[in-house]
């Protein structure tokens, strides 16, 4: 949970496409890494796609919504667009990962997570 809104802390929610390909796996692992280092709170993209009210209103109320998409199909960002909620999209294939080919290793996950984290920080300035 991102937490009580009593404080002044910005709410950053992170979702991942978690698709079937290697890029979906990487998106999921990068999102979990960002949650672990407290870049933001992870929430469920599937629940947003299903338009479950608590998830949708949480995304609507967040200061920033970060979506980690595996590939340029961009299912995650399209869910936000359908809901009319702005999001910041990061696509795993933009980081030199080839869909259906690149092996997803812990080192690659750490490397991409660090790069995405830097982009998130830069966009937040």
């Amino acid at each position, binding site marked *: *949970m*991102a*937490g*009580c*809104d*009593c404080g002044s802390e910005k*709410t950053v*929610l992170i979702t991942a496409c978690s698709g079937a390909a290697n890029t979906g796996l990487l998106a999921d692992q990068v999102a979990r890494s960002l949650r672990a280092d407290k870049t933001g*709170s992870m*929430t*469920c993209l599937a*629940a947003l796609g299903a338009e*479950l*009210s*608590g*998830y*949708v*209103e*949480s995304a*609507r*109320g*967040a200061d920033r919504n970060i979506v980690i998409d595996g590939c340029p199909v961009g299912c995650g960002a399209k869910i936000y667009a359908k809901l009319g909620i702005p999001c910041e999209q990061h696509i795993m294939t933009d980081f030199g990962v080839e869909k259906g080919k690149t092996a997803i290793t812990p080192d690659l996950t750490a490397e991409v997570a660090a790069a995405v984290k830097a982009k998130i920080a830069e966009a937040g300035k």
Partner: protein
Amino acid sequence: MKIQILGTGCPKCKTLEQHTREAVAEIGIEAEIDKVTDIDAIMEMGVMMTPALAIDGEVKSVGKVLTKDQVISYLKGGK
């Protein structure tokens, strides 16, 4: 009508509860108002920030202290 105030008990949650009770009284509807303070129950509803307001199981607002008039609008089916 079942109204749920989701929050762990902070001042903003209490203010939302107060505004909700005032709204219910003002429009004279019969409603059951439940406070949901258990963090797991709150998260099961997908709510990531509190306070939140749900009406008949549907979350209407998250992370905001709604005014009495805003609550009335939701109670009347509006946004």
